[in-house]
């Protein structure tokens, strides 16, 4: 497991147990222990009841990300980000419709209408089939991003299997959790801060 992948995962999770860290990285615990120990010893990660990134770890992560991006075709990343924005809007409106009936100002969805819920969830297939090629295009530049396709597919499978918590529940790698992190990756890959992205009207 690379130093970059571990530091980035810890940063995106904020605070994370080693077991959850291994899961999100698609490894078993043994597969990450050596890297985590080494990062902790060098002070880049802070170990308590959970792992978190230290200020020096954050700086190291920035360096590694800059190196990773050194030779990418920025036009290709920008194009992927542009395509992502459109499907991002549709996905978030899908999740909002799942949570609320009647749009953003609507009432909480009590999930008492199976037909309504099924119609909302049916839209996830379209979102997924649109986002996968976008991730593929971005991953031609940053291969690490391919992992997001796999994680989205896992979440999609659980949702379609009736485990609807995997659509949007935080703190597990639900479809929205993975999506939110992917969004963060793309914003930073395209060279924006989230603040800049947010102020330019997306990333919200």
């Amino acid at each position, binding site marked *: 497991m690379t130093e970059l992948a571990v530091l980035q995962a810890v940063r995106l999770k904020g605070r994370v147990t080693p077991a959850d860290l291994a899961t999100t990285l698609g490894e078993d615990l043994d597969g990450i222990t050596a890297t985590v120990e080494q990062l902790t010893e060098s002070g880049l990660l802070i170990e308590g009841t959970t792992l978190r990134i230290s200020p020096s770890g954050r700086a190291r992560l920035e360096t590694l990300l800059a190196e990773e991006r050194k030779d990418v075709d920025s036009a290709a990343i920008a194009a992927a980000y542009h395509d992502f924005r459109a499907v991002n809007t549709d996905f978030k409106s899908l*999740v909002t419709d799942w949570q609320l009936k009647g749009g953003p100002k609507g009432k909480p969805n009590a999930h008492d209408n199976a037909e309504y819920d099924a119609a909302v969830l049916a839209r996830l297939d379209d979102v997924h089939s649109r986002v996968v090629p976008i991730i593929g295009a971005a991953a031609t530049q940053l291969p690490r991003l391919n992992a997001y396709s796999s994680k989205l597919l896992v979440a999609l499978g659980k949702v379609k299997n009736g485990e609807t918590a995997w659509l949007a529940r935080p703190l597990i790698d639900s479809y929205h959790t993975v999506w939110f992190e992917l969004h963060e990756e793309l914003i930073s890959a395209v060279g924006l801060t989230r603040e800049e992205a947010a102020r330019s009207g997306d990333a919200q």
Partner: protein
Amino acid sequence: MVLLNGDADLPRELLGNKGHGVDVMRRHNLPVPPAFCITTEVGLRYLADPKAAVDAIWDDVLDRMSWLEAETSHTFGRGPRPLLVSVRSGATLSMPGMMDTILNLGMNDAVEKALAAHGSAAFARDTRRRFTSMYQRIVGGESNPVPTDAHAQLRAGIEAVFASWNSPRAVAYRAHYGLDDRGGTAVVVQAMVFGNHNPNSGAGAFFSRNPITGANEPFGEWLPGGQGDDVVSGLVDVEPITALRDEQPAVYDELMDSARRLERLGCDMQEIEFTVEDGKLWLLQTRAAERSAQAAVRLALQLRHEGLIDDAETMRRVTPAHVETLLRPALQPETRLTAPLLAKGLPACPGVVSGKAYTDVDAALDAADQGEQVILVRDHTKPEDVLGMLAAQGIVTEVGGAASHAAVVSRELGRVAVVGCGQGVAASLAGKQITVDGYEGEVRDGNLPLSAWSETDTPELRELADVARRISPLRAHATGDHPRLDDTSEAAVRAAMDAGYADVASATPLIIMLTALRLAGQVGP
């Protein structure tokens, strides 16, 4: 096609709320600019076959325009004293802000020149600017020039307002509230009066009583030098309605007298739109206003005391749902309105919580670990903020809409959230004790307490229960030797009535009686 000169006296279904209100006001000699109404029937025909529907009424429209010209001694589309009109939507359903309206219609170079000659160049220019931007926004085609022919403007304006019945936002609004899609809208064409005319002019919108607290005092807004759409836009800083009392006391008194008359005519609190032109009051619209549960109870009691409504009507004005709302702990409107408003955004997850504002996630987590009530305030949210959101009681963001990641996550976590409060809010709130209101989309100063009304202790509910006991087929009491009925469902209340009980004891006697009155058909649904 109906002239709204006070004797139309046609049902609301045909005239729409706006047309009906204008006709009632004219009938009672209140100061209303002359207007005519193209009915909802035409609106429905328009939706089926737009061109044929407008062709069929066009001669009548021209005829009514001549009547407007005669009534106002102004001429449409030319000087020396040009007539401008508003073209307003008027559905039978109330859909605030969902339908289109065009003001200052009938404008071209010659008209602008004539307005400048009679008023001022600045007034003429401002009026033209308002017309052009509104016409382009609503009729469409920002690249298309606005026609110079006033009648072409009128026709396009009428068509656009009819068509706005099926605008995406109107369709979504009706779908959300489960309203009938088939009603269609009427169009009201009314002579313009100008709140932007000179310093003694302005526009306002107000409630004859406070619709939030139910206090018997006017509540609303006044904008010197503005037109009606400025007041409702939320983009301009408006003054409270009481500012008009200081600026133009005679106009204010006349407005309040009119409001009282309209209340008596409608037997209810009114929401009134008005314009003042050169110190002369004009009423544009009146309707029964939406209200909070608190206001519903207090207004029903006030109107009953004033003799405007009888006991049965009093019981119709307050629903079991109102009382149920009041019995739940909530931020009472009096508390809310007296606490300084620190930020306003979009409600993303409902509820009311208080705590100390933290802008740093780690600091928020540490404080929450110490048992502190924490509100996480961020300019924008990142994936790594999610744990901080979980530890917080509530979430406030500067940037982001109601479908933003922050909104999505807050709803999943069940954390009260207000999003999109604007830049700089995080810094201004940091370290303060604040209350986040996820119903109203507000952040207010301090730890505001929640409280609930009680059927036994709140005087308004006791008084209402006393009235209910006089007319309810099933009298419910807080105490006494009666069969108990604590289940407030319709089925349980109906069963008690079917069993022939006249008196029951209940923890919520008022809700029982309001339900019984509805079941017995003594008051409407």
